[in-house]
């Protein structure tokens, strides 16, 4: 008898609780900050061109070979507007094949590709998610504006400032090690 009452009390409590289910197409749960969505290309608003220089590191790293691209001489560089000698001309990611592993983002040296928050990619045509450069840049711009995305130049400056702040504080012996560590790092990057 008592256990029945206990059980009913539990049922009553649960029935008065607010439901946790979100009615999906109408409601969306908030996305996590690190949410991995489909990859997108970022846009350098300062010179209005993509960050991507078409080095193809990501294309080679992709486990499913879903990317392709070509590189051309950057017309903006000839005019002196941009520091990039080369720039991406055509780029295509077959998002239908992408497995969202994020390896392309990891190997990119220019922060030109990022995992956006785009995750609803249903399409009517079979190859409808073969996304070309404008589409990917659009996704990237959306991602950049939605999150406080920090451009690589700003990031670099911040790291440099941090190093400069840390260097005087360190003792003489340690500084020596620091320098060699930095040298190691740059050497690694060069490789």
């Amino acid at each position, binding site marked *: 008898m008592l256990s029945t009452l206990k059980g009913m009390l539990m049922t009553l409590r649960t029935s008065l609780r607010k439901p946790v289910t979100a009615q999906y197409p109408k409601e969306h749960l908030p996305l996590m900050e*690190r949410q991995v969505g489909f990859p997108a290309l970022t846009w350098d608003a300062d010179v209005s061109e993509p960050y991507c220089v078409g080095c193809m590191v990501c294309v080679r790293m992709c486990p499913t070979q879903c990317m392709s691209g070509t590189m051309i001489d950057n017309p903006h560089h000839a005019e002196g507007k941009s520091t990039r000698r080369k720039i991406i001309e055509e780029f295509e990611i077959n998002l239908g094949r992408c497995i969202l*592993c994020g390896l392309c983002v990891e190997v990119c040296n220019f922060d030109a590709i990022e995992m956006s928050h785009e995750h609803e990619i249903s399409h009517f045509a079979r190859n409808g998610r073969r996304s070309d450069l404008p589409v990917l840049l659009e996704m990237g711009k959306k991602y950049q504006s939605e999150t406080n995305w920090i451009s690589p130049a700003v990031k670099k400056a911040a790291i440099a400032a941090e190093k400069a702040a840390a260097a005087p504080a360190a003792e003489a012996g340690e500084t020596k090690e620091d320098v060699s560590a930095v040298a*190691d790092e740059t050497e690694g990057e060069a490789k």
Partner: protein
Amino acid sequence: MVNMGPQHPSTHGVFRMVLWVDGERIVDAEPHIGYLHRGSEKLCEGELYPQIITLFDRMDYLANYNMEMAFCATVEKIMGITVPDRAEYIRVILCELNRICSHMLFYGTMGLDAGAMTPIMYGFRERERIQNLFEAVSGARMMHNYFRIGGLREDPPDDFAERVAGILPALAQGIEEGDKLLTYNEVFLARSRGVGVLSGQDALDYGLSGPSLRASGIPDDIRVTEPYSIYDRFDFDIPVGNNGDTWDRYAMRVEEMRQSLRIIEQALEQMPDDGPIKATGVRGIPRPPEGEVYVRVETPRGEMGVYLVSDGGDKPYRLKVRPPSFANLQALRPMLRGVYIADAVMILGSLDIVLGEVDR
């Protein structure tokens, strides 16, 4: 002769079983596997080392972190990399959380197999807490691709330790609630006690591992007998069963969740607040030296072995996986002989197989 499967609600994947029956009793059973075969081992030979982690994610899709751990530990061993402490602690915390996550699903489906609907709700409620944490750490709920050879992809969020500590009490309570709900339920006991008994010797002969082996009374856990990573720094018990029946296999996993919580608590205490998360000297695409190596780790399902032969290149020459579920599945046939058809589902469920790694 009855055909069971390939699509059957009690298997996590596609698995077919042909049963020869005499009335309600099973005379013989023949498992048919291969419906989820993707040729992962062969694919590994054509992929660079960092790319292979994505393939391991997809083998045991209920314990992704543990599988990533298996592969990363293998390559780290052959290359002689020492992983920074902080990275190891984060790995262990994530692996143990994933173990709870996987066992929670087992707990739920076990209830379903026995005809109880509520446990899966409880199980998924707890899973959601863990999954949310995983999502905050790696950005994905399933295919994390978060472990790297020599460490981790990136630092976990700043509030990682607090968040883990925050969900632990809720998890502990959830496990106790679930335990109270199902473990000593009269109907559940009647269905599972003395059903599908496997003796310790048989279990060893069939190469069982993990909770299924321990249920038969053999205290063998790779985390203790051959500690990998930093498992030798934690104090935890290995639950051992007495009878080797379906109930024992179920109870082992419930108890293991509690032990996992103990490991996580200790790891949170010992974890350094700051430090590198990736070993120095691992840059670009790793090229392990020529040679071969075999590493075993304990996934929620049992012993996961990775045998790697390297020819010094950026892709493995050969990679062989010893999946726990595949070996555990071999014991199904002797266990099914002589039982009722209705119990077949429960016995299969109690082995907690994941077809993704059985077929690879």
